[in-house]
């Protein structure tokens, strides 16, 4: 009797182990290290179902045709450290490849289908409840191949009782599809879960903002930060922060701090205690955290940012060396970028050549969470988005779903 095939499917094995009677379960801990850790995780997931939920999404390539699959890894707080725990993969990709993965307050979103075709649409995924909700495609706005979405953002506040969300797609276009005339500027399509409909309108932006954004690379990505009804994107070239106000439908741009002209920016925007922070790693300049201070921008030369934290790059690299394995130390490890912070800006997660590194900003300490050897084993490539540590969102009651016009699920 061989059950070997299932050994490689940790998510299924996890399910099996979680359901075993207590005595058998305990006994199986002596099977192997992997089984022991799976059982530990199964036991703790039963008892701590309501704990904070934080994790990473990785793209995994597999098979001969290099099919891509996104997988969610949960970050678990084990005794004495943190570990990545595999959760069920949420998208199967021979059908559609997920692009533009982003998140907001514990809910992930991604685009799938073929750009410019009717079937291209977005889905939301809640890794905690494993619910997927597919947004209806927005036919009214005919995307052409030249009009990729410029920026994406999800507005979802788990603290609100109604639990509705809005999904924002920004296009930078040279043609006004609404009025069928050439135009320049930004068009915004917003899907509201309340109405179940997409609404498209021309965005308002003043001349200064327009001129600023016109020269930018029109790919803001899906990493918008949502805070108090605004969406924030950090753009690399020119280094600026774009703010979209949901209520008024206006855009505004603010210059970001940048150390030297020729250095590529690798920054992330984060919110903590009601303020917007910007964090970046530069090879020459180290690790900086800036806080957004709009009033400061009034004086001529000053940027609206104040630096609150700084470590020079030599210190950063020696810390990174400390968590490296022997072999890669010789080659030298590198940072790719900061992917996330925890709620209080004390912990940063760094993508490095060595793997995923947890960086305790206050105590200046680094821990390797997912080493690249362990990541290679499952064929993981870098490029994750991260959910903040946040209580799992509560889904609205099913009563609202009865009224649904499209066949998709409300949260």
């Amino acid at each position, binding site marked *: *009797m*061989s*059950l*070997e*095939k*299932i*050994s490689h*499917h940790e*998510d*299924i094995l996890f*399910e*099996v182990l979680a*359901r*075993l*009677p*207590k*005595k*058998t379960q*305990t*006994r*199986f*801990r*002596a*099977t*192997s*290290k*992997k*089984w*022991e850790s799976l059982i530990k995780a199964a036991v703790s997931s039963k008892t701590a179902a309501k704990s904070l939920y934080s994790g990473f999404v990785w793209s995994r390539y597999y*098979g001969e045709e290099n*099919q891509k699959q996104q997988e969610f890894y949960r970050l678990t707080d084990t005794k004495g450290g943190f570990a990545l725990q595999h959760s*069920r993969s949420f998208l*199967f990709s*021979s*059908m*559609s490849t997920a692009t533009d993965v982003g998140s907001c307050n514990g809910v992930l979103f991604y685009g*799938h*289908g*073929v750009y410019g075709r*009717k*079937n291209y*649409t977005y*889905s939301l995924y809640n890794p905690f409840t494993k619910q*997927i909700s*597919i947004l209806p*495609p927005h036919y009214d706005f005919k995307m052409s191949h030249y009009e990729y979405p410029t920026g994406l953002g999800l507005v979802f506040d788990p603290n609100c009782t109604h639990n509705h969300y809005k999904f924002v797609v920004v296009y930078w276009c040279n043609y006004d599809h609404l009025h069928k005339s050439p135009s320049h500027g930004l068009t915004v399509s917003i899907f509201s879960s309340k109405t179940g409909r997409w609404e498209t309108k021309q965005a308002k932006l003043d001349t200064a903002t327009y001129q600023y954004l016109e020269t930018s690379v029109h790919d803001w990505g899906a990493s918008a930060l949502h805070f108090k009804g605004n969406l924030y994107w950090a753009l690399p070239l020119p280094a600026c922060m774009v703010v979209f106000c949901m209520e008024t439908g206006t855009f505004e741009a603010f210059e970001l701090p940048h150390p030297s002209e020729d250095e590529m920016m690798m920054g992330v925007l984060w919110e903590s205690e009601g303020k917007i922070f910007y964090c970046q790693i530069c090879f020459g300049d180290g690790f900086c955290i800036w806080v957004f201070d709009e009033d400061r921008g009034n004086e001529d030369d000053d940027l609206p940012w104040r630096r609150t934290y700084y470590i020079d790059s030599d210190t950063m690299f020696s810390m990174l060396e400390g968590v490296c394995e022997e072999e890669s130390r010789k080659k030298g490890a590198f940072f790719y970028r900061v992917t996330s912070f925890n709620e209080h800006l004390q912990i940063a997660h760094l993508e490095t050549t060595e793997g995923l590194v947890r960086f305790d900003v206050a105590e200046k300490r680094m821990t390797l969470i997912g080493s690249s050897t362990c990541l290679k084993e499952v064929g993981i490539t870098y490029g994750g988005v991260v959910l903040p540590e946040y209580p799992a969102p509560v889904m609205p009651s099913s009563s609202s779903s009865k009224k649904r016009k499209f*066949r*998709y699920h409300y949260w």
Partner: protein
Amino acid sequence: MSESTEKKMVRLRSSDGEVFEVEESVAKVAKTLQDMLEEDCADAVIPITCVRAPILTKVIDYCKDQVMISSSSSTTNNPNERTEQERKAWGQKFMEGVDSSTLCELLVASNFLNIEGLLNLGVDKMVSMIQGKYPQEIRDMFNVVNDFTPEEEEEIRNQNAWAFERDPYYKKRSSSK
């Protein structure tokens, strides 16, 4: 807006190339397929790349049964409606005679296709197959290598001695070796 097309058919291709034609309602029992069909991106044959034909047959059987129950459950006098007990018995019968290798493939298929009911049946079946066993039996069944040092294994056993009583397969490995 109601869809007038009745009994729309969907074609699925197993990993070994066999094509199955099933009613859309049957395919939709699998959440993964449902999502795809609702996205409208499944006009051709849907490749089910990790499921072999004999397994897919079994999966389709399961889905057909689910459709049969749910379609008739709205009528008041429903001959197909099952009590909790009957449901359980049906599940057991469905999994009866499924050997371990088929079970593995069924689990992988239902996980991939996201069919919760079938996954549950499979998981329960596997639980019943392995409960009460000892670590060495598990290693043999799952082909797992014991990567504990003798000391580490001893420690786990000592800490949870109540669960390990009279393990017939366990002989203390000497730590010197």
